[in-house]
């Protein structure tokens, strides 16, 4: 069977939300009759071209339909692959599987219906096929392109924090200067090619972006209408609307390649919130090699009583204001999440389970620990201001202030007895907290009070 079976088996959505492949006899017979010697390794493009020709031009309607079914079968496999690809790349972190995606895109029943039913829904596979032009792109490219534009799938992914820009968004997003840079420096095109593209983009902007604003179109950018393509063609004076469309796609592809090549793909906050990666966090915040560091530590030593007082006040204020911006029951989840992280050292994934969230990214978004720490430091610095004698130096020199902020980060991450003398530490902290960072220690104290007062 092998790869060829993709042309006669259709990937469908089962009632359990999983995909299954269904052999389509008509497609199989037809395909095997058309390509009896597949061992010969016929290029994919050629197979598709031939099927496409039959679908478009055969005088025998059953052949037309059979060829279409073969192509739709192929598309369904590609669509499934897109979902698998998304799951592999992002599912773990964002907490979705291919099965969450299938219902949006696996909707081809494999039945007749080339013509759009009046008021009826057209399966994605058929939509893809109707817009397909084998002279311009492979069927796989075309499928990926249209799946990428699928509104409901996009909405689902956006809610998870992933966005897929349409070609039109990418073109909207490109200035003439950027276009020139990308085409010359990244694609090494000739001046004439650059000029042609520049003119195309200018005409596209003048029509498409203007219409988007004038017509108040929001959300996903739809393909340009025939009227828009005609208007662009008129501006360009020479080209036909279908050529314009193809060139716009080509241009968008080029821009997209550069986008992908110049972008980091790992979420920057992925690892920072893991307790086991606290060291990493510290290495980020203590990048300073300023000789006056020692002096600044002295600053903290000098104000350590005020420091601790201010820290308590800051924590209380930051936790309270965070809680107030969250709607119930998120405010309670926030407090519990904070408690589980700082006081029980659970990982984001474990916390997700404990507080009934699906994925770790949801916990990350709820807790926003990096912001939390920053807010605490800022409140702390602001609170210390009243005690600081040499304000001009500390608060008027931004670099100085910045180093101070980093020093506080270090102090918060340090074990408590580094800052406070041991006896004092023992006296002020409950048993078992001693080995954690100062911040964790104080957060737990604050939370014990807040949670204690709400639960007991």
């Amino acid at each position: 069977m092998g790869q060829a079976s993709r042309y006669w088996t259709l990937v469908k959505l089962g009632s359990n939300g999983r995909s299954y492949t269904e052999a389509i006899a008509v497609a199989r017979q037809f395909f095997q009759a058309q390509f009896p010697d597949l061992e010969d390794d016929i290029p994919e493009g050629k197979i598709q071209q031939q099927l496409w020709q039959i679908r478009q031009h055969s005088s025998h309607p059953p052949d037309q339909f059979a060829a279409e079914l073969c192509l739709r079968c192929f598309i369904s496999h590609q669509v499934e692959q897109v979902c698998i690809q998304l799951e592999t790349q992002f599912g773990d972190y964002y907490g979705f599987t291919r099965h969450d995606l299938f219902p949006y895109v696996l909707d081809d029943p494999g039945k007749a219906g080339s013509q759009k039913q009046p008021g009826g829904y057209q399966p994605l596979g058929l939509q893809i096929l109707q817009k397909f032009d084998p002279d311009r792109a492979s069927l796989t490219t075309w499928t990926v392109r249209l799946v990428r534009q699928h509104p409901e799938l996009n909405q689902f992914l956006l809610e998870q924090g992933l966005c897929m820009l349409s070609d039109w968004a990418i073109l909207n997003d490109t200035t003439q200067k950027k276009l020139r840079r990308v085409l010359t420096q990244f694609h090494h095109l000739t001046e004439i090619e650059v000029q042609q593209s520049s003119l195309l983009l200018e005409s596209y902007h003048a029509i498409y972006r203007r219409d988007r604003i004038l017509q108040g179109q929001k959300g996903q950018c739809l393909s340009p209408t025939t009227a828009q393509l005609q208007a662009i063609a008129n501006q360009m004076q020479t080209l036909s609307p279908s050529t314009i469309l193809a060139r716009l796609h080509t241009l968008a592809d080029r821009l997209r390649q550069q986008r992908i090549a110049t972008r980091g793909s790992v979420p920057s906050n992925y690892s920072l919130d893991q307790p086991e990666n606290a060291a990493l966090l510290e290495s980020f915040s203590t990048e300073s090699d300023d000789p006056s560091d020692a002096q600044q530590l002295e600053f903290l030593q000098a104000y350590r009583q005020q420091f601790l007082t201010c820290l308590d006040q800051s924590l209380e204020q930051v936790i309270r204001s965070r809680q107030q911006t969250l709607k119930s029951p998120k405010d309670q989840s926030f407090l519990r999440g904070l408690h589980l992280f700082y006081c029980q050292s659970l990982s984001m994934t474990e916390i997700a389970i404990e507080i009934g969230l699906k994925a770790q990214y949801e916990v990350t978004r709820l807790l926003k620990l990096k912001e939390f720490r920053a807010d605490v430091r800022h409140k702390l610095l602001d609170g210390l201001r009243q005690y600081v004698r040499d304000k001009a130096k500390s608060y008027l020199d931004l670099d100085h202030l910045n180093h101070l902020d980093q020093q506080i980060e270090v102090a918060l991450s340090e074990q408590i007895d580094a800052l406070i003398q041991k006896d004092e530490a023992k006296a002020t902290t409950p048993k078992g907290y001693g080995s954690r960072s100062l911040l964790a220690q104080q957060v737990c104290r604050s939370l014990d009070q807040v949670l204690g007062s709400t639960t007991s």
Partner: protein
Amino acid sequence: MMYEAGTALMERFLDPEILPESVISLGPATMEQAMARSRSISHPDRQWQTYLNTLALFGVAQWFAQRAGDISLNQGQASILLPSYASVIPAVCNLVAKGFKLCLIATTSQPDEVVEIPRAAIDLPDFIPHFYVVVAIYEEQAQVMLHSFLRYDQLASRIATIPPDEDWTYPIPLNWFDPNIDRFLLYLRCADPGAIALPEPVIDLRTALATLQTELLHLLPQLQVNDRPWWQTLTWEQGSVVLSTPPLLNWILTPQSPSPLPTADSPHPHLSDLLQLLTRPLINVGNWLQDQLDDLAQQLSWVLLPPLSSQMRLKESGDTMPRDEFEAIVTQLQRQGVTLLPDARAAFSNLVIGTIPVRLCVITATFQEAGQPPEWSLLVVVGPAPGNHLPYGTRLRISDTTGILVQRSLTPVQGEEYLFSEIFGTLDETFLVTITVPDGASLSLPPFSW
């Protein structure tokens, strides 16, 4: 084998971008508001840029509300909300948070390695911020993100290495910007705006305007009628003066209504009046109430008349105005329904316009209505020199910085000897009086101020 190729291709094309947790989602109503604000701009690129800038402003305002409720953002002077700047400076200048001025640079969802900052925000003190903030806009997704920021002092120390582009932008390397937005918050929350010294205006705008006056009179009308970017018409020197002079910006961006009277004046009488108002030395008529003429009025041989309430007889010598003549004027004014305030003061000046001798009388007073700021009045009476007649077709025009307020012509129908008009303004307003005689010769007096 073919299958692998397909997968590679899929990875290339299927490229979800990861939105950071700090991203701000804009609602449909906000998107619509931003679109509505940019619809009136006809130039397609500027329209889109204004739209993105507005999204940046709304997004940052929302970010402050969500992330830093302790900081209030003052958008009252935001350039993007002022029509005169919105489409001219492609950034959001003059936002204020805790005394710090911010300038938002709206960029595409994935900022380029170079950030285009308008020259105005780097070279013109009116627009220079404490912080430049790069705001990445995912327009299709209605998401906005604070990407990075740059302190003015850090930019200023290095800007000499970057020549500005001809389109009035500086290409600033993205790696100058600090992606640590928490640090930006730290500065706003804990530092004092004095920590970053901003430059004071160094050029004398009045002198610069006076030098460029003739060129601007010629060039600014072009900006009004064509859609080309300003940098294609003006030099930066000219542009910087215009950008620093709001009345000129307003003139350019206000469609001109056709003149109510057919005139042989310059094709853009208000622009020429405006330039004079902005550049010429002023005559202070407020001094008249203290029984004084300022130096300029003295140089121009103005003669101050005694208070109207005084019963003092006026001398009938050559240089002063005979009481009969002044009373005739007052009588005629009263017939026209103009009443003079008791403490009004008048002065006159004898002028020759072309070949026509003219006597110009100006009467001024100050008053205040309940609940209103104090105002002053300027009553201008153009009459013949003694023993002459004012020719029909003599015209009087009075302008302020917003437009031409009065245009009158002496016609036989009225059978009057005098042309007059009275206008009122707040104490900071100035007025330019221009008299044109039938042969086309005209004279603008130094602007009157209080």
